[in-house]
């Protein structure tokens, strides 16, 4: 078995007396698409914050491609090849769409804190920025200030910034939240295409998206993973059904019904 792209062991996080993440173990194969589902407040975003370095775990460890990243600051983890998006769009609102994407590109192309180059003359940066914009379909809106984008486009930009740096482990936190059906379909196609060959963890409430996209699914409830498996296994898992009991829609999807 190859080194897992991401390996989480005994991860715990307390906020004061509240245990939000209570012992999560998870190994991701390189190239795997892994979905995390679970009810509101289960700790999905907190898990992302722990993995990406925004929060420090109370206990446990996270390894990225075999390297310990527990306790490292977010920018270091990002440089090691892990990138994430946010549930609430977290973009550079005063900049144009193109500048937003460029912010995501600069470091990965080795222009870190450079103060001796003119960004306008960086061919590679320009090229990469253009490619990302084209790929996500924001090329025609490149010159709009990000704050003026319609909601769905802001979500797309969020993804664009996340993938711009070329990280090979990508964490997406509810990328389709609040999108219409057609917008969701487009976003899913984009995610599929943009993360081809990469390791993806996606938090998603839309079961249709989850079962379409994921190789494996983990169910997070009250800070614990109660089940991990292929979509078929999860569908049939009685504990998962129990966790979602009462939610008719989800029940239907889980049962493989009307879709």
């Amino acid at each position: 078995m190859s080194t897992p792209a991401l390996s989480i062991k005994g991860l715990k996080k307390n906020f004061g007396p509240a245990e939000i993440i209570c012992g999560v173990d998870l190994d991701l194969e390189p190239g795997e698409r892994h979905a995390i589902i679970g009810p509101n407040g289960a700790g999905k975003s907190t898990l992302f914050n722990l993995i990406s370095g925004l929060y420090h775990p109370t206990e446990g460890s996270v390894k990225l491609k075999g390297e310990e990243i527990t306790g490292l600051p977010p920018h270091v983890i990002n440089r090691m090849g892990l990138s994430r998006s946010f549930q609430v769009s977290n973009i550079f609102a005063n900049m144009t769409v193109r500048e937003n994407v460029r912010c995501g590109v600069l470091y990965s192309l080795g222009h870190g804190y450079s103060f001796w180059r003119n960004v306008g003359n960086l061919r590679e940066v320009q090229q990469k920025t253009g490619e990302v914009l084209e790929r996500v379909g924001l090329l025609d809106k490149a010159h709009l200030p990000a704050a003026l984008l319609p909601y769905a486009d802001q979500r797309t930009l969020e993804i664009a910034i996340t993938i711009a740096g070329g990280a090979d482990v990508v964490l997406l936190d509810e990328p389709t939240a609040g999108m219409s059906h057609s917008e969701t379909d487009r976003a899913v196609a984009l995610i599929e295409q943009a993360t081809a060959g990469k390791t993806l963890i996606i938090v998603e409430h839309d079961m249709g998206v989850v079962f379409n996209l994921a190789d494996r699914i983990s169910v997070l409830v009250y800070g614990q993973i109660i089940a991990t498996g292929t979509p078929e296994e999860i569908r049939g898992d009685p504990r998962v059904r129990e966790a979602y009991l009462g939610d008719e829609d989800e029940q239907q999807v889980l049962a493989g019904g009307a879709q």
Partner: protein
Amino acid sequence: MQSNSVQSYEHLAPSRAVKIRQRFVPFVVMAVVLLLIPFFDPSRTMYSLTAAMGINIVFALSYNMLLGRGGLLSFGHAVYFGLGGYAALHAMNAIDAGNSAFWSNYPVFMLPVVGFAIGALAGAVIGWPSCKRSGVPFAMISLGVAELVAAAGYMFGSIFGGEMGVTGDRMVGPQAFGLSMGPVEDVYWFIAFWTFVGTLGIYAFTRTPLGKMSEATRDNPERVQFVGYDPNRVRYLVFIFAGAFAGLAGGMSAVNYEIFTPESLSLVPSGLVLLMAYIGGIRYFTGPIMGAILLTYMQSMLSDYSEAWLLYLGLLFIAIVMYAPGGVAGMVFGLLEIFRHGGAREMLIRRVQQAVGVALAFTGLVILIEVAVRWSNGYGEVFEPFGLHLGIDTPLSWILILGFFGAGFVTLRLARNNEEGHA
């Protein structure tokens, strides 16, 4: 997929015409203005005014690297100006002394480079602890540092020269560009050169990856971490550059005035540079330039006319903060926008109405202040504009004050009603 990779995205960058119009032309205009000024045969006063403006332009621009571009509110930016200036003066004296081969061959013209280096060094040392914080803690630290350095300035007499400061003589050492640095014309060329270089340098900085990430960090310090940047590192580097360019301005000042006192490190000039940048407009690159020109003018001209000029400065600042947060530059570009998009006649009329209203009310306020200041001084002096006699007990004074206030108020009201009518 493969075919995409050969596609070029050069069309995404601003077109050549736009680049020339927005980046090249302004600097050509600036250079032409700087070159033409001496041909109008300015008086000594005008020369010293332009010199002060040049120094303040670079100083205010360097301050805006922090406030406008980096989102860092500093109350102690004069520290770097002052330290750079002192360093330049000491270097000037070393040139004069001629004890070392290096300094005796160093032209006074190049002293701002010394200011730049020492400003950067001071920024690197002081910024190391202070840039670990942002927001309010950063502002408080900058205030503390300013107090501390100014106090040290008064204490360490051998370096800062005590109350009297350190003086120098700029007509020493080898000449550069055939300038003896004696006559005001020579000093003018020196100031013009460094104003241009400083402005160009600070502008160039905004175009670098670090400059861009400085803006990104200002807007969203959380997100920059997830594209590989340490926001504290970005702030620290920006801080060093801001210190360096402030030091450059300090070096210009050292050569121009041939004196630096510990006062120059204090909160007073730190506050003034904040006002220049803010009144000019921190969201625009040219804002601090406009603010520096305006405030320097007010400082030297208005202070001759009225001892209450600081009061007017305070009023201007408050008015800008409350009603025109874009500053002078915001108003100028706002007007240009209206002109460009023609057809917005109502908008223009409203702006004129507002301007008239503000001018009227302000005139009332000026009369009130000028009358009151003279009365309060108690020397029996009386405000006498245009041959009028306006004492505190003259009815005409009060009629004028209330009349102007009233007229201004009504005009502003009209403008606002118009606005609501159109909204």
